[in-house]
C-alpha cells in the first residue's frame, strides 16, 4: 500500500486534527467564541463523520489502523454526539460567563482520540487513542476551575484514569511479551495456538480488561463515576456518558473480537461477573441517591453492565447487540442531560429529585421528555431502552451457555430494582407540589432534549430498521484484522 493510500484511510482523523489546530489558532488570536466558531467545530465533526462514511475501507500503516464497517458505525455516533456536546456546552458555559474557546477544541481532540480507539488494530494505537481522549476529558471535567467540585472531579478522574492507563499498559506489555506482537491479528494467531504461554497471556488479558473496565466504568472499577458526574459541568457529563462510553465499548470489542476471538471461554466469565456486578451496583446504589447527576451515573454503570453482557455473548450476535444498545443508550442519555442543563431555578441548576417536584405544571414539555427518558432507561416497551435491552438479552439467551442465561435472568432482576428510582423521579415530576417557578430553558438544550425524546419513542421504531443492519454489518467486521 502506498504512503498516500494509508493517509486516505485515516482521513476522518486528519480532518479533525486540522480542524482542531485551526480552531486553536483562531481562538488564541481572536480570544472570543462566537457562533461562527462553534459552528466551525460542529461542521468539522460532521465532515469527519461524512468522510468516515464515504471513505474507503481497509487497513492502514501495516494493520495498526482499521477502517471498516465497525469503525464507521462507531465514528459516526461518536462524532455526532461530540458535535451536540459542542453546541450544548458552549451555550451552557456562556450563560455562566465562563466561555472558553478551548472547550470546543478539546471536544474535537477527544473525538479524534475516540475515533482512533474505535479503529485500533494494534495495542499501541489503542493506548495512544485512549490517552488522547482521556487527557482531553480530564481537562473538560475540571473546566470550571473556580468551582471546587469541578476541580475535584477533574483531579479524581485524572488520578484514577492514570491508574487505569497503568493497568492497561501492564496488560499490554504482558500480551506483547507472550505473543511477540502488538498487532491484534498476530496476537489472535498466537492465542489460537495457545500452548505453554497460555497462562501468561491470560494474565495480560485480565489486566487489559481491568484497564478497559475502568474506562467504561464497569463495577468493580466504577468508584470514580458518581463523583466525576456530580462535579463536572452538566453538558460535559452528558458528553462523558455518551461518546466515551461507546468508544470504550468499542475497545472491548476490538480487543476481544479482533485479538482474542478464539479465547471466548476465557474472557466470558470475567465479563459476565463485571456485567452482573455493574447491574447490581447501579441498581442498588442508585436507590440511595437524591442528586440526579449521581443517580444517572449509577444508571450508566448499570447500562454498561447490560452492554458488557452483550459483549460476553461473544461473536457477531453479541457485538451486534452491544452496538445497537450503546447507540440507543447514547441518544437517551444525551437527551436527559440536555433537559437537565436546561432546568434552572433562580439561576441555580436543578439537580436533585426534590427540585423536579411538580415540573409537569411548570415545564410540561421538558417534564414529558424526562419522563420518556426515565421510562426508556427503565426498559418499558415501546421506548428505545426496551429495544436495546431486548437485543442484549436475546444475544445472551441465544448462546446456549448456562452461565450467560442465568446472568441474563439476574440482569432482568437488576433492571426491576432500578425501576424504583426511575419511577420515583417520574412521581416527583408528576404528582408532587411545585417548589417554585423554573427559569426559561435555553432553546438549544430544549431542542436537543425534545429531539432525543422523540427518538426514544416513536422514531426509534423507524430508526431500528436501518440501525439494525448497520450494526449487523459492523459486528461482522470484527475478527478480520
Amino acid at each position: 500500500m502506498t504512503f498516500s493510500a494509508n493517509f486516505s484511510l485515516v482521513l476522518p482523523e486528519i480532518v479533525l486534527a486540522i480542524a482542531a489546530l485551526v480552531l486553536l489558532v483562531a481562538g488564541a488570536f481572536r480570544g472570543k467564541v462566537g457562533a461562527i466558531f462553534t459552528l466551525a467545530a460542529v461542521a468539522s465533526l460532521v465532515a469527519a463523520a461524512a468522510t468516515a462514511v464515504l471513505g474507503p475501507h481497509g487497513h492502514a500503516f501495516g494493520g495498526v489502523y482499521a477502517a471498516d464497517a465497525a469503525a464507521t458505525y462507531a465514528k459516526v455516533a461518536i462524532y455526532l454526539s461530540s458535535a451536540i456536546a459542542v453546541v450544548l456546552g458552549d451555550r451552557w458555559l456562556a450563560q455562566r460567563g465562563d466561555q472558553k474557546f478551548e472547550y470546543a477544541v478539546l471536544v474535537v481532540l477527544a473525538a479524534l482520540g475516540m475515533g482512533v480507539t474505535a479503529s485500533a488494530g494494534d495495542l499501541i494505537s489503542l493506548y495512544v487513542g485512549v490517552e488522547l481522549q482521556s487527557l482531553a476529558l480530564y481537562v473538560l471535567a475540571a473546566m470550571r476551575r473556580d468551582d471546587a467540585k469541578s476541580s475535584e472531579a477533574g483531579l479524581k478522574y485524572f488520578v484514577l484514569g492514570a491508574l487505569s492507563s497503568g493497568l492497561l499498559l501492564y496488560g499490554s506489555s504482558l500480551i506483547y511479551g507472550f505473543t511477540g506482537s502488538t498487532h491484534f491479528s498476530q496476537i489472535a494467531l498466537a492465542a489460537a495456538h495457545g500452548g505453554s504461554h497460555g497462562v501468561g497471556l491470560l494474565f495480560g488479558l485480565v489486566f487489559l480488561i481491568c484497564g478497559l473496565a475502568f474506562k467504561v466504568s464497569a463495577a468493580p472499577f466504577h468508584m470514580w463515576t458518581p463523583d466525576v458526574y456530580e462535579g463536572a459541568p452538566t453538558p460535559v457529563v452528558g458528553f462523558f456518558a455518551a461518546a466515551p462510553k461507546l468508544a470504550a465499548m468499542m475497545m472491548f470489542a476490538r480487543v476481544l473480537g479482533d485479538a482474542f476471538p478464539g479465547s471466548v471461554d476465557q474472557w466470558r466469565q470475567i465479563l459476565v461477573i463485571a456485567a452482573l456486578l455493574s447491574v447490581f451496583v447501579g441498581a442498588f446504589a442508585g436507590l440511595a441517591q437524591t442528586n440526579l447527576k449521581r443517580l444517572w451515573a449509577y444508571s450508566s454503570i448499570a447500562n454498561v453492565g447490560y452492554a458488557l453482557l452483550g459483549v460476553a455473548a461473544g461473536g457477531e450476535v453479541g457485538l451486534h447487540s452491544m452496538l445497537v444498545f450503546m447507540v440507543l443508550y447514547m441518544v437517551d442519555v444525551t437527551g436527559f442531560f440536555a433537559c437537565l442543563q436546561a432546568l434552572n431555578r433562580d439561576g441555580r441548576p436543578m439537580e436533585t429529585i426534590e427540585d423536579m417536584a411538580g415540573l409537569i405544571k411548570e415545564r410540561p414539555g421538558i417534564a414529558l421528555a424526562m419522563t420518556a427518558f426515565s421510562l426508556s432507561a427503565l426498559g418499558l416497551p415501546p421506548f428505545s431502552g426496551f429495544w436495546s435491552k431486548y437485543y442484549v438479552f436475546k444475544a445472551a439467551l441465544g448462546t446456549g451457555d448456562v452461565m450467560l442465561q442465568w446472568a441474563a435472568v439476574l440482569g432482568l432482576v437488576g433492571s426491576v430494582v432500578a425501576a424504583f428510582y426511575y419511577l420515583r423521579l417520574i412521581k416527583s415530576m408528576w404528582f408532587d407540589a411545585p417548589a417554585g417557578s423554573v427559569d426559561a430553558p435555553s432553546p438549544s438544550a430544549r431542542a436537543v432534549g425534545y429531539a432525543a425524546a422523540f427518538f426514544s419513542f416513536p422514531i426509534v421504531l423507524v430508526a431500528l430498521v436501518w440501525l439494525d443492519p448497520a450494526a449487523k454489518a459492523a459486528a461482522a467486521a470484527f475478527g478480520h484484522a
Partner: protein
Amino acid sequence: MPLQAIAFYLLAFVTIAAGLLVVSARNPVHSVLFLITAFFSAAGLFVLLGAEFLAMLLIVVYVGAVAVLFLFVVMMLDVDFAELRQGFAQYLPIGGLVGGILTLEMVFVAATVATNGAASKNPLPNASPGGVPNTEAIGRVLYTDYVFFFQLAGLVLLVAMIGAIVLTLRHKPGVKRQDIGKQVARTPKTGMELVQIKPGEGISE
C-alpha cells in the same frame, strides 16, 4: 578492549557513586546536580553498548528537561528537606526490608537470566543491524511505518499543553503588559498633559 573496559568501570563507578550521593547529600540542589552526573555517566554506558540514540535521548530528555525541572522545583518551592529527613531511623527497618527484598529479587532474576534464561537463548541484540546505526534505523521507520503513532503522540502533547493553559492561565485585569504597537503609536499629544498649577497646591494625581 582494555580501553573499553577502563571506560566501563570508570563510568559504572561514577554512576553508582553519584547515585549514592543523590540520596546522601544534605543540600537538595547538590542532590539534583549529582543526579545529572549519574545521567551523564549512564549515557556514557549506553555509548559503550553502541546505543548512541538512547545516550542522546538520556541527555536531551533527562538532563535537559527533567533534571532541570527538578532543579527549578527544588529551588522555587521552599521544601524543608531537613523536616522530610526526620524519622529516618524510625522508617529504616521497613525501608531496609523493602530494599532488601528488591535486591534479592533482582539478584535472583539476574542469576536465572544469566544461567538458563533469555540470555542463553537470545544473543545480545545488535545495536546496528545490517550496518545501519541505530539513530538512522529509528529515523527510517519513525516517519514512515510509525508516522501514525508519531503524529498521534504529538496530538497527545498538544492536549496536555492546552490543558495546562486552560486550567492555570488567568488574565488578571490589573497587570501591565508591554505592547510595542501601543508604545510606537504614542504621540506627544497622548503622552503628555499640560496642567496649570495654582501656587500652594499639588497636582491631583
